[in-house]
C-alpha cells in the first residue's frame, strides 16, 4: 500500500492504495465518488470515463499511481459551459433510460464539445462509439449532442 494524494474536482484526497489499483476503484471505493461507473474493467464500455488533466480517460485502464499531480474531474465535478449545455440537452431530450452508462456518455460528450464545437454525425459517432449503452439510447445521445452544440452557438 502507498499513500497517494488525488486531486479530484478541486479537492485533495489522501488515500492508501496499491499503486496498481485502477483509478476507477480509487475514485469509487477510496474517495467514495460513485457517479463514475464500472461496466467492463477492460476499456471496452466507457462507463468509467473521467477527465485526467482535462482529457477523457477510461479510469478502469489506468493505475492510480500513474495520475501523479494531474487534476481529475468526475461527473460530480463537471462544470464547463459545454458540460452545462450537455446536461441541459440530456434533460430536454430525456436521454437516459436505465442511466447506468450515462455518466460516461456525458463525460465523453462534454469532451467532444470542448474539442469540437460543431461536431457532425460522424464526429459524434467516432467520439462516442466507445461508450456502450445496453439500453441503446444512441439516437437520443446523438440528438442531444447536436442540441447542446446549437445551444452553445452565439
Amino acid at each position: 500500500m502507498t499513500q497517494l494524494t488525488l486531486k479530484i474536482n478541486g479537492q485533495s484526497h489522501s488515500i492508501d492504495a496499491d499503486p496498481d489499483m485502477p483509478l476507477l476503484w480509487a475514485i469509487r471505493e477510496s474517495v467514495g465518488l460513485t457517479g463514475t461507473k464500472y461496466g467492463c474493467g477492460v476499456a471496452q464500455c466507457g462507463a468509467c470515463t473521467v477527465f485526467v488533466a482535462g482529457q477523457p480517460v477510461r479510469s478502469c485502464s489506468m493505475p492510480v499511481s500513474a495520475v501523479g499531480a494531474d487534476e481529475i474531474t468526475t461527473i460530480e465535478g463537471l462544470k464547463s459551459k459545454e458540460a452545462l449545455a450537455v446536461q441541459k440537452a440530456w434533460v430536454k431530450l430525456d436521454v437516459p433510460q436505465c442511466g447506468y452508462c450515462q455518466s460516461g456518455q456525458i463525460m465523453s460528450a462534454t469532451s467532444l464539445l470542448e474539442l469540437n464545437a460543431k461536431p457532425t454525425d460522424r464526429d459524434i459517432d467516432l467520439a462516442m462509439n466507445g461508450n456502450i449503452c445496453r439500453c441503446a439510447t444512441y439516437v437520443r445521445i446523438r440528438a442531444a449532442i447536436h442540441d447542446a452544440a446549437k445551444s452553445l452557438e452565439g
Partner: protein
Amino acid sequence: MMGSASLKNAALAIAAGAFAAGILMVAQGLLTSDADAAIQPALKLQPVASFDKIKNKSQRAVALFQEAGKVINSPRCMNCHPATERPTQTDRMRPHQPLVVRGEGGMGAPGMMCTTCHREANFDSAGVPGNPKWHLAPAEMAWQGKSLGQICEQIKDRKRNGDLTLAALVKHMAEDELVGWAWSPGTGRTPAPGTQKEFGALIKAWADAGATCPKG
C-alpha cells in the same frame, strides 16, 4: 429431398447458429487480450553473422531484410500499420474494438484519442497495452496487405518514411521506444521475434549491404 418442414427446420437451425455466432462475436469483441488466440512462443532471429556466407552483396541484403521481415510481419508491428484508418489488434489482427481511427497525427479522433485508453505503460489487469508514444503509423506507412518487398521499398522512400535517411531509419528501428514496445507488449500478446537490438542489427547490416529489397 428435404420436405418443407425439414427445410424450415434447417433454416431455423441456420438462423439460430447465426444468432449464436453473433453473440460469440460480441463476446470476442469484449476480450481485449490475445488469450482467445493461441499465443505463439517468441520466435528467434538469425544473427547478422550467419548471413556472412552470402558473398553477393545484394543477395545478402535481401536475405537480411527477409530475416528482419519476421519482425515487420509480426502482429505487434502490423496492427498499428493498418491499410485502413482503423487499427487491428491481437495476434489474429482483428479490427480494433472499440472502433477507433487514425485521426490527426495518428492520435485518434477528438473525444476518442489513443490516450483515452492507452497510457504510459501496459496495464495488464485491464488488458490494455501502453507506451508514452502510443499512436498509429500514418497512412503512407501502411503495411497491412503489402508484400515484404513493397514494405521494403516503402520504408526506404523518404516521401513515405517520414523523410528519414537510411541512417535515421536504422536508428529508428534499433532504438525507438514505441518500436521497442513490440518486444515487451504485456501479458497475453506474443512479442515480436528476437530482440530490438538483433532487429536493429539486421536492419543496419541490410543498409550496409546496399539496402536491396526482396522482389515482389
